C-alpha cells in the first residue's frame, strides 16, 4: 500500500516531534534526521520488512533512534570537545513555530478562567500530584477532569486548525 502525500506529512510531523524532543527544537538538523528516518522506513517497507501493521510505531521508533544515534556520533566525532557542559535541548516549541500560533494560544488562554488556569498550572508546570491539587483547590476528581478536558479541547482545536493548513499545503 502506498502512502499518500498527506500520510507522509503526518509521519513527518510525528517524527519532527520525536526528533525535536531528542535533539532539542533548536537543532538545525531536525529536518535531515527526519528525512533520513522516512527514507529508511519507506525502503524497509518496500522490501516488506515490516511484519505487522501494528508494529509500525515500534519499527519507526527503532529506525528513528538509530538515525539519532548516528547523528550524535557524527556530531561528536566532527566537533571539537565542548569547553563546558553542552546546552540542554530546548524544552518548548521554537519561536518560529509559535509565532503563527501565538494569537490562537493567547485566545485559548483568555477563555480559561483564572481558577482553571491555576489548576492547569499546578498540574502541568508545578507537576503537583492530582490528589494534592484536588485537596488544595477543593475540587472533586470529576471537576478536575472537566477542567482538563475543556482546556485540552480548546488547544486540540488550535492544533487541528494549524494541521489543516499543513494538510492543504501538502495536498497542494
Amino acid at each position, binding site marked *: 500500500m502506498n502512502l499518500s502525500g498527506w500520510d507522509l506529512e503526518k509521519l513527518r510531523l510525528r517524527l519532527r516531534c520525536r526528533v525535536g524532543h531528542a535533539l532539542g527544537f533548536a537543532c538545525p538538523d531536525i529536518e535531515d534526521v527526519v528525512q533520513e528516518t522516512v527514507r529508511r522506513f519507506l525502503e524497509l517497507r518496500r522490501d516488506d520488512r515490516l511484519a505487522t501493521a501494528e508494529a509500525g510505531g515500534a519499527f519507526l521508533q527503532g529506525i*528513528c533512534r538509530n538515525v539519532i544515534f548516528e547523528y550524535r556520533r557524527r556530531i561528536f566525532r566532527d566537533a571539537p570537545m565542548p569547553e563546558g557542559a553542552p546546552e540542554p535541548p530546548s*524544552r518548548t516549541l521554537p519561536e518560529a513555530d509559535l509565532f503563527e500560533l501565538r494569537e490562537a*494560544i*493567547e485566545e485559548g488562554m483568555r477563555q480559561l478562567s483564572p481558577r482553571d488556569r491555576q489548576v492547569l498550572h499546578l498540574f502541568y508546570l508545578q*507537576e503537583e500530584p492530582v490528589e494534592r491539587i484536588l485537596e488544595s483547590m477543593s475540587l472533586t476528581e470529576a471537576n478536575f477532569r472537566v477542567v482538563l478536558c475543556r*482546556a485540552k479541547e480548546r488547544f486540540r482545536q488550535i*492544533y487541528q486548525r494549524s494541521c489543516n493548513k499543513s494538510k492543504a499545503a501538502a495536498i497542494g
Partner: protein
Amino acid sequence: MGTPYHEDPIRREELIARYLLRKLDSEAADAFEAHYLACSDCFEEIRATELLICGLGGSVRQDRQNEGIRILRFARTSQLTGTSPELSVLDRIVRTPGDTRVLIDLSGVSRIDSAGLGMLMRCYTHAVQNAGVLKLLNPSSQVKRVLSMTHIDSVVPTFEDEGAALQSFQTLAPRTEAEN
C-alpha cells in the same frame, strides 16, 4: 493486550506532561514514543498539551533589547500574589543565569501582595548579586502605593516611561572588577 495509554485521560496527561518536560525515564519514554508514532490520537494530545503548556508558561513575555536588557511583560492582566502562577514563571525567568539587566513592566499587574513583593526583592537581589540591575516600569496606582508604603520604590528604581527606563540602563557605568 490493550494499550495502557488510552485507559485513563488523566494518567495519559500526566505521562504526556512528564514526557514533554523530559522527566520520564528512558524506558517509559521509548515505549511512549513507539506508541505515538503510530497513534494519531495520542500525537494530537501531545501537540495540544504542548500548546497548552506554552500558553501557561507564556503569561510572562520576554523581549530583548539591543543592549542585552531583558524586558518582562505580562501578557494579560495579572496579580502577583501568593497563589498566582505568574509568580513562579517570573522567578524562573529572572533567575536565568546571565540575565542581569532586567526591566519588569508592571502595567499589567493589578494587585500585589507580600509574596509578590518578596519575589520582586528576590529578583532584585539576584540581579545585584550578579553585578546586574533590576528596574520596574509603569506600576498601576494600587501597585505603586504598595511599593511606596514598603519603601521598595526607594531601593528598586521605578519608571513611568519605557524610553527613560531603557536610557537609564545605558547611562550605567560598567562595573569594574574591584566594585564587584
